[in-house]
């Protein structure tokens, strides 16, 4: 606890990396998940039921399975690891952790966004089109009307990744000064018997989650359409 209160450099580094990894993963998940959820909620197309079933399955994906999947993909003998593409992250880097967390979070964001958009009064869409909305303006308005649910989708995505340990442990490796985040540090300190530090790190994690959710809740009262 003294290390936390004293602003220990290693601890700050761990907190910052946690926020960087989960924040970037959440941003990517939001950029993918909200348009995907809006598309699936507002359009009818062949195979939509299958896609919905896949999306709902993705919402319940165990993080450790996602970690295993990304690990096998990115490992040197894996299908992507052999390619050596510059934009593909290597294993045991923050990039690999971001990739894994994005895969965990985007189905949550997309699934909850889809449900939120589908919950908007079905007459509203036709009526705003009758007022002269373009398809793009119509989609933005419906997302804005569903903003409570859309923000909840982002919160659910954030909750799913800030607290997960299985995937980041597998693909990050919990390397000090490189890939150690709050959850993996808690696991390590617990195993070492440093329960006090583990609890203190847990409190830091809870505080971060609380403050972030508080900030996101502010968005529910705002409108975003043209």
């Amino acid at each position, binding site marked *: 606890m003294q290390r936390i209160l004293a602003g220990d450099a290693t601890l700050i580094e761990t907190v910052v990396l946690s926020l960087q990894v989960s924040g970037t993963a959440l941003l990517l998940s939001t950029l993918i998940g909200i348009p995907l959820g809006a598309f699936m909620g507002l359009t009818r197309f062949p195979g939509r039921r299958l896609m919905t079933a896949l999306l709902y399955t993705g919402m319940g994906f165990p993080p450790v399975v996602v970690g295993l999947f990304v690990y096998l993909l990115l490992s040197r003998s894996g299908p992507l690891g052999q390619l050596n593409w510059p934009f593909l992250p290597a294993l045991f880097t923050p990039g690999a952790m971001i990739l894994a967390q994005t895969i965990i979070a985007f189905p949550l964001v997309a699934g909850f966004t889809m449900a939120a958009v589908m919950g908007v009064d079905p007459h*509203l869409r036709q009526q705003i*089109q009758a*007022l002269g909305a373009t398809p793009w303006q119509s989609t933005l308005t419906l997302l804005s009307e569903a903003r409570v649910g859309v923000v909840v989708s982002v919160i659910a995505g954030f909750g799913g990744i800030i607290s997960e340990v299985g995937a980041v442990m597998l693909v990050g490796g919990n390397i000090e000064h490189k890939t150690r985040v709050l959850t993996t540090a808690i696991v390590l300190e617990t195993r070492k018997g440093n329960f006090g530090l583990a609890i203190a790190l847990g409190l830091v994690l809870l505080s971060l989650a609380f403050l972030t959710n508080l900030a996101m809740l502010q968005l529910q009262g705002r409108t975003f359409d043209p």
Partner: protein
Amino acid sequence: MSQPVYRLQGVTKVYPTPSGQERCVLQVEDLRIFRSEILALVGPSGAGKSTLLRLLNFLEPPTQGTIHFLGQPFSPDREMPLALRRRVTTVFQRPALLNRSVWENVRYGLRLRGEGNARERIQAALELVGLRELADQSARQLSGGEAQRAALARALVLEPDVLLLDEPTANLDPYNVGLIEDVVRRTNQERGATVVLVTHNVFQARRLAHRVALLLEGRIIEVAGVEDFFERPCDPRTGAFVRGEMIY
């Protein structure tokens, strides 16, 4: 008669049924709607009146045929340009308002057009429908009649050339019916807006319309001036409908 605003030629609308078959809900051989007239579309439920209104607002294309609006064709393979589409708007039977204030609801269509700062127009529209006092109230707190008047205000603030009304006074009390009818009449007389009114209420059609059209099973049975339609109908089915003898 003045110039036609709309001309419909060979227009059909077909929807698929859940059993995988097709059902033709509208078949209009030839219909003209003239500038500054009030045309009432009457007929039983399921006659195709609301479908025709959706086509006139370009919300969906016809399956076959062409709708000419101000000379511009709208057909299965030709969309209506946005600028022309925005000269038409609809007030629906059940108003769906945004979860915002009454003011923001009325402002919405103007914002879509990049004219969200036109405060005077919003105030005038709210004044016209008697909602000025409720401008800051949440639209979700309005009564049924107030919500319909707000929906009318958000349409009128756009100063449309064509106002489409789909059963706008169904289930409203006499005060709101009278107020809405008065606003529609004034919009037609003072601004010269063309109005197409879908209604079950033949008395309302008689009070408001210049011409009346009867739709049955997707087809227009008769179109006539209001006096001829009610006093001297050409088709016996029109007479039966007007006298309330038609069973549907």
